[in-house]
């Protein structure tokens, strides 16, 4: 076992982000230590993906200080060598075969072509994609693409992982494998930043849960801590409570009546 200290791998100070006039992130402060699995949750449009994109250097106009591995990320590309990323939207060069795509990505991370090739094929086999190594990604189903993306984010043995809704499209068995991979990686000193709206998975795997609402962090702690503070059973219920949401029945009723033709 690799000892897990209090080493801070990611620190965000007063992060603010606007899209036009709309303020998406309004002062995020966060320190993530090595070996943590952060469950980053929040309603649709809360700004989860935006945060992750900023951390990857994909969004440039923001205010605040971000340090990854102790260095400011602005104007820096080197830190990406030790980072893995699964984007929310499965954007990849899908007219390549899995082999072509994965070796390409591996080489961008500075790995030897032969090494990546072996590694990638083995990972594909283990993840239930055996025999598809030389098939074009464009013919893959959503879940299969997602698996290729997950593999591509891990090829270079990164220390910090950003997963944005990584299990979209994965079947139940693959989700189990994936959850187990995450906890074993964390046990080996990797840090995982897991952004999702699927509560029960987050509840099970996260060592720390961060709830984002209205551009601010409204809850931060382990599942047990959140449970104590909120006297609710599941993360889903805590989520409803903290986001001040309790009218799901009324909304559903109105929704169904609109479908059936009552325009109020």
């Amino acid at each position: 076992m690799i000892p897990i200290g209090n080493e801070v791998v990611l620190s965000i100070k007063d992060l603010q982000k606007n899209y036009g006039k709309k303020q998406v992130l309004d002062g995020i402060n966060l320190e993530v230590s090595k070996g943590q699995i952060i469950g980053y949750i929040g309603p649709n449009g809360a700004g989860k993906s935006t945060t992750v994109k900023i951390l990857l250097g994909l969004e440039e106009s923001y205010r605040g200080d971000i340090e990854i591995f102790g260095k400011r990320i602005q104007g820096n590309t080197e830190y990406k060598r030790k980072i893995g990323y699964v984007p929310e939207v499965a954007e990849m060069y899908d007219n390549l075969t899995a082999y072509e795509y994965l070796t390409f990505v591996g080489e961008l991370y500075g790995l030897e072509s032969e090494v990546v090739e072996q590694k990638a094929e083995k990972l594909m086999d283990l993840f239930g994609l055996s025999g598809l190594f030389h098939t074009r990604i464009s013919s893959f189903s959503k879940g299969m693409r997602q698996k290729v993306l997950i593999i591509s984010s891990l090829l270079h043995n990164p220390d910090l992982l950003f997963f944005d809704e990584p299990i979209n499209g994965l079947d139940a068995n693959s989700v189990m494998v994936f959850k187990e991979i995450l906890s074993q990686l964390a046990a080996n000193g990797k840090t995982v930043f897991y952004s999702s709206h699927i509560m029960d998975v987050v509840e099970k795997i996260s060592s720390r849960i961060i709830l984002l609402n209205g551009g601010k962090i409204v809850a931060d702690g382990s599942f047990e801590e959140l449970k104590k503070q909120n006297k609710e059973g599941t993360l889903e219920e805590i989520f409803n409570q903290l986001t001040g949401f309790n009218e799901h029945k009324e909304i559903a009723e109105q929704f169904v009546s609109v479908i059936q033709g009552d325009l109020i």
Partner: protein
Amino acid sequence: MKDFQTLKFLDMFKFLFVKLGIDYGVMRRILQVKLLMDQRRVPTIFNQTGKKKEKDQNYFIKGLWMYVLYGALLIPFMILGESYLFQTSIIFGIVMFLIMTSMISDFSSVLLDIRDKTVLATKPVERKTISMAKTIHVCIYLFFLSGALTLPSIIAGLIKHGILFTFLFLIEIIFIDLLIVVLTALIYFVILKFFDGEKLKDIINYVQIGLTIALAIGYQFVARSFDILNLDIVFVPSWWQFLIPPIWYAAPFELLLNHNFSPLYCFIFASLDCPNYLIHSLYKNDARL
């Protein structure tokens, strides 16, 4: 993975890229993947539904003969007479028009791939290297396109007007390509600056329409710069001709070959300076490219 002749040729200039501080290995790898994907891209005219060919074939190279055919239509302008300014500005005008429209319509999806951001920008690759890979990618297309388009006129010019003319013609084509690269980059830059990926396709359509209209009108001006009545082609210089790129590029022919030292012909320098100026202003804020 498949290697490309084009890239082997590029290897000869490796030292240049290294000098510019570019990670040549990574740039080459990006280009290799891009060219491979281009091979698999089927242009809309060839798109036969249902038939899925797994075998790679380069539709781009195969489509080049169309451009050679267009190029052949330029031969009459080339051999018409000795009025270089008129002839070459017509040819350059048509060449620029065809290249610009095909760069923007057929290749925008290639040259402006929104997936690049997620795939490339999240990797430890310097922005410089990515930008250079994209620029070279554009240049490769441009090289083949303009080569195919001008090949017939170059041969005709060589026969009719001799070596010096042909040499000048080739140099001018290179400058025209330079201007087109910069203009294309500028157009994309402006589009990306104000619109995001989703709206891009619509915008590109508008740009295409706009460009077609603009060039058609501009073309009228080129033709009108000359008094073609009685087939007595006389160039009547006036200020607005400074604004017409094909004339910039045609001017050196008149200057050097017909020894016409009218001060107006000095606006060839505009042609040399314009891309330069644009490049500088572009690189200053290329944060998004």
